[in-house]
């Protein structure tokens, strides 16, 4: 059931990204272009998603464990440090350059668009490079 649940979740996530237009780099860059021809619609995607997950998360507090697993894997980090901030800045700059963040980039892979494939190749390389050079945050999770 773990794998079926994860598959369904991934599919719903991908459909949501495609229906909302988050997968379109031009639309994302127009959303970030607040000093230009700003297209603010994508804020509705974030708002609707955050509110929905907020409700689910509140509900989960009354449960000891998830339906098909032994425990909720709650993120253990809460500090705001230079690692978090520098990572977020690098991500934001890359996001603004092309208009793709990881989820939409992966959703667009099977379109076969060559620009998307080149971006995803570099995305994976960047992820592995950071893994080798910096490594994961030490946590008990």
């Amino acid at each position, binding site marked *: *059931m773990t*794998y079926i*649940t*994860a598959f*369904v*979740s991934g599919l*719903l*996530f*991908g*459909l*949501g*990204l*495609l*229906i*909302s237009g988050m997968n379109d*780099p031009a639309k994302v860059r127009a959303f*970030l*272009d*607040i000093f230009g021809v700003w297209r603010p619609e*994508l804020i509705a*995607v*974030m708002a*609707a*998603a*955050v509110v*929905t*997950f*907020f409700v*689910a*998360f509140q509900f989960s507090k009354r449960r000891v464990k998830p*339906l098909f697993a032994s*425990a909720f*894997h709650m*993120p253990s*980090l809460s500090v705001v440090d230079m*690692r*978090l901030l520098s*990572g977020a*800045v690098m*991500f934001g*700059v*890359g*996001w603004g350059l092309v*208009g793709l*963040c*990881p*989820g939409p*980039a*992966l*959703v667009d*892979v*099977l379109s076969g*668009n060559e620009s998307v494939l080149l971006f*995803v190749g*570099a*995305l994976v*390389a960047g*992820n592995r*490079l950071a893994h080798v050079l*910096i490594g994961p945050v030490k946590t008990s999770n």
Partner: protein
Amino acid sequence: MWDEIFGGLLIGLAAAVLWLGVGRISGMTGVLSSVFQFRNPDRHWSWAFLAGLMLAWPMVQLVDYPAPISITDKPFLLIAAGLLVGFGTYVGNGCTSGHGVCGMGRLSFRSAVATVTFMLAGVITVAVMTALEVQI
């Protein structure tokens, strides 16, 4: 506007399904890192998630839903951006999904700071590119 709201609801529902079903945060950065942890059975769910995620594209093609992809064709921009996003999200432990949707939905201060930071960086980057008249 309704497409955005409906899409956002689906994304939130997807995150709810993964959290309530198997107790995992649906963050793409985490998924991306997890698929490489072949020998860790605790991370194998990420392969199923990724398969579902990637099959969304062929599925919307079946029903002829318009899902345009307008993207630069400049290799330098694409490689630089991909490396920055891949490296930055690993270092910052999350992206628009993990920090933006799930983190903010959990009311995590750390995730809210991350989200505001990468959004500001994105806004500034687009503004600077416009000012410098960078052709994309």
